[in-house]
């Protein structure tokens, strides 16, 4: 897993590999990462994945896509988007799926509200959500494809559905400006995006940033795949959806209280 509050108050690091692009942008603002970090063949990304819907063995609730998550009686597990970077991808996948289906922004926000009414546990991280799900709670786990594959590789009884509409998760990597071993650090980053290293990522459940390495059987491209740029990129999305004091998700969290008390 990648971390979201990284080297900020000066812990020495040569390389940063984080959840979201704005995490690196923040470091660029603090002059800890060079502004041209994303001028690489892979645009600064080291791994990709997609948001998937984890289900119980045999898919007893017959989950096929996003519409099934807002049905009554379906329990959905996803972390709290204010504590978990991973959950932000989940939220944007759910929101974007509605836009992809031709819904209006307002309808997509309504969908999010319906969705969160079906969430009985908002763990603080994606890892804990996985634990909650494998511990027996919930019918659907909104998760990264790579997390679901890792869980399967560890023998957890989890299956997953790749919905037709989902978001491409892109994880950035960069060398820091304060690195005392800049050359070695750059060599490491270069290696991480090279074919042999990417092959390892593919085996571990990630989609490669080199498209040819992604076998269509394991990693089919969903018909309605979209990127975060669709919504103006992370900077815009963070303000509009995830500002802790005034944003779409903050209002949805607040509506949870109104509707139940």
């Amino acid at each position, binding site marked *: 897993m990648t971390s*979201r*509050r990284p080297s900020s108050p000066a812990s020495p690091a040569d390389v940063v590999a984080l959840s979201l692009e704005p995490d690196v942008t923040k470091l660029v603002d603090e002059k800890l990462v060079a502004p041209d970090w994303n001028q690489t063949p892979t645009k600064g990304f080291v791994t990709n994945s997609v948001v998937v819907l984890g289900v119980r063995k045999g898919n007893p609730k017959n989950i096929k896509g996003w519409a099934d998550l807002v049905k009554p009686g379906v329990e959905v597990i996803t972390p*709290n988007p*204010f*504590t*978990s970077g991973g959950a932000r991808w989940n939220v944007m996948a759910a929101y974007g799926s509605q836009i992809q289906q031709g819904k209006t922004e307002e309808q997509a926000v309504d969908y999010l509200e319906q969705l969160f009414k079906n*969430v*009985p*546990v*908002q*763990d*603080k991280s994606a890892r*804990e959500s996985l*634990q*909650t799900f494998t*511990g*027996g*709670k919930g019918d659907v786990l909104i998760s990264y494809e790579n997390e679901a594959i890792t869980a399967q590789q560890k023998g957890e009884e989890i299956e997953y559905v790749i919905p037709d509409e989902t978001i491409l998760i892109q994880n950035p990597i960069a060398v820091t400006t304060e690195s005392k071993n800049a050359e070695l650090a750059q060599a490491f980053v270069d290696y991480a995006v090279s074919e042999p290293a990417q092959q390892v990522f593919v085996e571990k459940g990630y989609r490669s940033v080199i498209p040819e390495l992604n076998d269509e059987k394991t990693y089919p491209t969903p018909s309605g795949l979209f990127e975060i740029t669709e919504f103006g990129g992370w900077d815009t999305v963070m303000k509009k959806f*995830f*500002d*802790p*004091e005034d944003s779409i998700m*903050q209002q949805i*969290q*607040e509506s*949870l*209280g109104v509707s*139940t*008390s």
Partner: protein
Amino acid sequence: MSALPRPAAIVVARPAIAGALATAYLSLIVLIPLAAVVVESSVDGWAGFWDAITAPQAVAALRFTVIASSIVVAINVVTGTIIAWVLVRDDFPGKRTVNAIIDLPFALPTIVAGLTLLALYGPKGPAPFDIGFTRVAVLAALLFVTLPFVVRSVQPVLMELDREMEEAAQSLGAGGFTVFRKVILPTLLPAIASGAGLGFARALGEFGSVVLISGNIPFKTEVASVFLFGQIESNNTRGAAAVSVVLLLVSFALLLVVSWIGTRTDRHAR
């Protein structure tokens, strides 16, 4: 009685050095960090502070935390006193072991406590009930981590208690309950209050044991500390600090009341 005359110089000098050391230490470890929290909370002035602590989600989390802590303390006052009583007055095999177990909730990393409670009483646990991710689960976690407080503050007082007073009361015709209420309870009260106060303060700020077993759903199962964590992770340290200040003030007020009960009963006893 002939006590050795003490050299006057030391009597004067010692408290001065001790006082200076205590002040320096308290400042470094407690006062400066607490002051920093207060300063951080007031960066945006009174209006910003007020907005942060009156946001509906913050209010809900604070209310739930205070209510849950109060319930937990009420339960602790009864069960803790009973446990202390049994440990002091009764004899049974394995008493020493039980006595040692009381402190274990202090030693167990709280996150492990939460995980264990979840494994036992959660959806896949062996228990016939499932309290996982509910408000009851939050209470259970808080009861676990606050168990030692009342027990350990009541126990020594009970050990020192003068049995002759009880016997005197009995010889004057007082029944068991009357003896407890009129003779024992007033003596124990400051200790119970102090244990309750510490337990309450601990419960208010508890994070580790609660975060896994609570559903963390805003307005339902989200406690203040988990709400704070969300604010910090979303880069709103000011809001987090503001809510922390409220928790600190509530704790401080309560601990003042406890110490007031202590001095009042002391005077009363004399």
